[in-house]
């Protein structure tokens, strides 16, 4: 039991953009343990695991399995050595069935043809063996997130995985689904599998892990037995200080309505009613939080009101002025700012400089030059000012954004969106992939802008974040608002979980209070 099954020794990885993600990291796991790999976002956990899974090649360092030095050049090599990985973002083919996904590339054959019956039978067997409740014939696109994750896990097990890497498996799960997953992980452990569990949720790790390795700034801070550690000592090693403090905020004093959404519906690319007759309003000086498991219409909802999506029904107004289906430029002019959930596609142009990224929404304004001309002087002073105010760590605002860490990239986005002093700020997953320090900073800024009289619409999959920041709270499920709490203090995490899973729904009249 105390033999090291897998050893990674002195792993160093430098990305093409110059970020040193791993710096001589040592990491080892034993047979039959659940080993937590913990650290802030950008600490290098995912990089280390991607190296183990053969997706990246390290600049230096060796990997040993059962004492034998091996080279992992591709995920295929990793699978051959019994390493399986469940990614944070699932790698499944949505249009194929559950069984087809599990056996992708290793389908059972009969006379050279794929034997679908046998495949479904085998999928059922393996699901039963591990006590997984799945439907092998269902299309992956139609099943809930929790089940998708199970499909991913089964896929890895069918591939012969002895070591299972789970990259933030609970990030997309409700509290109830998380419980179920933990139960299953314990079963795996009994069956002799080894699990590497990446997370940054202290509570969960404490609950199921045997040992823990903590990473910070691309370095390993050591491996410890779980029973020797308490939450405080872990967080100290992880961030070098105590965990996120709750943001200090006064009681909200909501004023008149800024953003009003009337009967909004939209059908997404899969032909699903992604948003279903939503009524909602956000007032000056309040933060309205939207909780919900991802994929319940939040993304489409934000795309509609921010103008990225135009094919929807219903009306949207900002400060009494209808803005639905107007150009994004006009919607922004009406006072909307938008922190996108997808930083890399929408939030920044990575090849462009920081200052180019800071001015992209201000072309119609004199603050970067009169008329059609750019004033480099004005841009320079504006950029320097924003870099300073928003604590963007860089050597100069002329640096390309690609050289910044995730947290600093997000600060660039936040700086740009805050600079115009919006009437309504839409913050969609504002702290995703952002380190604790930057998260705290962004939270503070959101409260600050609220206190200055802006309306804030906060969408987050992170329950702690919504509960912490929101003044009032709505829950999305299946494209509908299923619950509304005028005061977010009146609800517990557990209760929210039930609404998020669609197990409960408030009566219409309470929900109507939102619109």
């Amino acid at each position, binding site marked *: 039991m105390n033999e090291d099954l897998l050893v990674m020794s002195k792993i160093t990885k*430098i*990305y*093409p*953009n*110059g970020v*040193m993600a791993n710096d001589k990291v040592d990491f080892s796991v034993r047979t039959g343990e659940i080993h937590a790999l913990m650290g802030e976002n950008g600490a290098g956990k995912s990089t280390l695991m991607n190296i183990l899974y053969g997706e990246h090649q390290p*600049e230096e360092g060796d990997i040993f399995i059962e004492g034998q030095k091996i080279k992992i050049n591709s995920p295929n090599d990793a699978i051959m050595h019994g390493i399986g990985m469940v990614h944070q973002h699932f790698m499944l083919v949505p249009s194929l069935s559950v069984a087809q996904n599990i056996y992708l590339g290793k389908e059972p054959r009969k006379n050279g043809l794929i034997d679908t019956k046998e495949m479904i039978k085998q999928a059922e067997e393996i699901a039963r063996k591990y006590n997984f409740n799945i439907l092998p014939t269902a299309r992956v696109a139609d099943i809930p997130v929790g089940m998708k994750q199970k499909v991913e896990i089964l896929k890895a097990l069918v591939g012969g995985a002895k070591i299972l890497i789970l990259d933030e498996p609970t990030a997309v799960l409700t509290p109830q689904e998380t419980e179920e997953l933990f139960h299953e992980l314990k079963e795996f452990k009994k069956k002799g599998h080894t699990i590497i569990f990446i997370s940054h949720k202290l509570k969960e790790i404490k609950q199921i892990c045997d040992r823990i390795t903590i990473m910070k700034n691309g370095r390993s801070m050591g491996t410890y037995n779980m029973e020797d550690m308490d939450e405080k000592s872990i967080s100290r090693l992880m961030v070098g200080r105590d965990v996120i403090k709750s943001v200090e905020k006064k009681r909200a004093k909501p004023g008149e309505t800024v953003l009003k959404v009337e009967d909004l519906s939209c059908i997404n690319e899969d032909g699903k009613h992604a948003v279903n007759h939503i009524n909602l309003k956000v007032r000056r000086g309040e933060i309205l939080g939207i909780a919900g498991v991802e994929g319940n219409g939040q993304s489409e909802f934000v795309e509609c009101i*921010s103008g*990225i999506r135009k094919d929807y029904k219903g009306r949207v107004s900002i400060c009494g002025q209808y803005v639905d289906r107007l*150009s*994004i*430029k006009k*919607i*922004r*002019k009406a006072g909307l700012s*938008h922190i*996108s959930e997808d930083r890399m*596609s*929408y*939030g*920044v*142009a*990575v*090849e*462009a400089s920081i200052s*180019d990224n800071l*001015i*992209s*929404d201000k*072309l*119609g304004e004199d603050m*970067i*030059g009169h008329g*059609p*001309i*750019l004033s*480099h002087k004005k841009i320079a002073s504006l950029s320097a000012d924003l870099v300073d105010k928003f604590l963007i760590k860089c*050597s100069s605002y*002329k*640096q*390309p954004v690609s*050289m910044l860490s995730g947290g600093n990239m997000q600060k660039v986005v936040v700086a740009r969106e805050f600079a115009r002093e919006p009437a309504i700020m839409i913050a969609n997953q504002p702290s995703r992939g952002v380190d604790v320090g930057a998260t705290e900073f962004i939270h503070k800024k959101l409260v600050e802008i609220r206190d200055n009289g802006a309306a804030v619409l906060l969408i987050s999959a992170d329950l702690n974040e919504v509960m912490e920041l929101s003044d009032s709270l709505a829950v999305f499920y299946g494209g509908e608002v299923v619950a509304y709490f005028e005061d977010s203090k009146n609800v517990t995490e557990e209760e929210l979980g039930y609404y998020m899973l669609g197990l409960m729904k408030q009566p219409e009249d309470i929900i109507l209070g939102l619109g």
Partner: protein
Amino acid sequence: MNKKREALFQFLSVLIAIAVALLVTFAIILCVSDEPVEALKTFITGPLSTKRRIGNVIEGMIPLIFTGLAACVMFQAKQFSLIGDGAFLVGALATAVLLLKFQLPAVPALFLGILIGGAVGGICAVIPGFLKAKWNANEFVVSMMFNSILEYFTVFILLNYIRDPGSGFVASYLIPENVKLPSFIAKTNVHTGLFIALFMVVLTTLFMYKTKWGYSIRMVGKNPRFSRYSGINTFAVVFSCQIIGGFIAGLGGSVELLGMYDRFQWQSTPGYGFDGMTVAILAANNPALVPVGALFLAYIRVGTDVMARATSVPNESVSIIQGIIMLLITASAFLSKTKHKMVIRSVRDEQKKIKEVA
């Protein structure tokens, strides 16, 4: 990796691409020529051997600068349109038609003649530009097919409306002598179009880097989704950058006609649009560097020309050089390992610095 190193790397990779291309060409010369040393010598020093040949290089640069700039503007927005080729041809045609069909005083004729070339060049880009902006029709394919239409359109106009039956070959009537761009260096054809070209270099550079519209073009090229989300009208940017490209290429056609020819005589595209893409790639899409890229291409053009006349190596060898350069510079994996090593070294340097400070 800081900006300086990045720029250095880009510069070096262009140089290495050129060197590889030249080496391959030399290897071919060695194989096909009976007198390879002589051939090489004329290739390298030929363009500088007489005043006339130096003149040839500079004349050759002029159309390349125009089409190079046109390609830069479109490439910056990641629009890989070939419309520059058709616009160049039709721009020249428009100028010829205007000057032959309307009697105008010299100075307005020159101005109008060149402007109409640009305008018609811009109009050429309307269809492929609109199809791309509105329905995302691949601009490369559409413009390539549209170029054939433009080519036959040109032949049609030339044969039916402006052809001079008295000329010994298929060509238009003589363009009035007083509207031509005069040459200003004796014994060469280096004409005042050079100044128009250089003026356009300055103008395009200012446009790309000092105006909001130029900024929008660059941002759409870097990340169209980001641009749209920021409120930039990506439809207008995608559409307009192709029209601007067509306009500049059309100007180039007019200038080339008025500077170098007595009659309009192209029955197929002279191919400057494609050369412009090579120039833009050599210049890393920076309009300010276009003259350098144009000079290089014009130089090896004249070099192979001299070589072809003096030895047995055919003119086409220049296409090999051009092809290899395009291939190597546009292949993103070219030298990527070296680049990664540079990145690692620069990270290590930075770490050392931090340690020293601490």
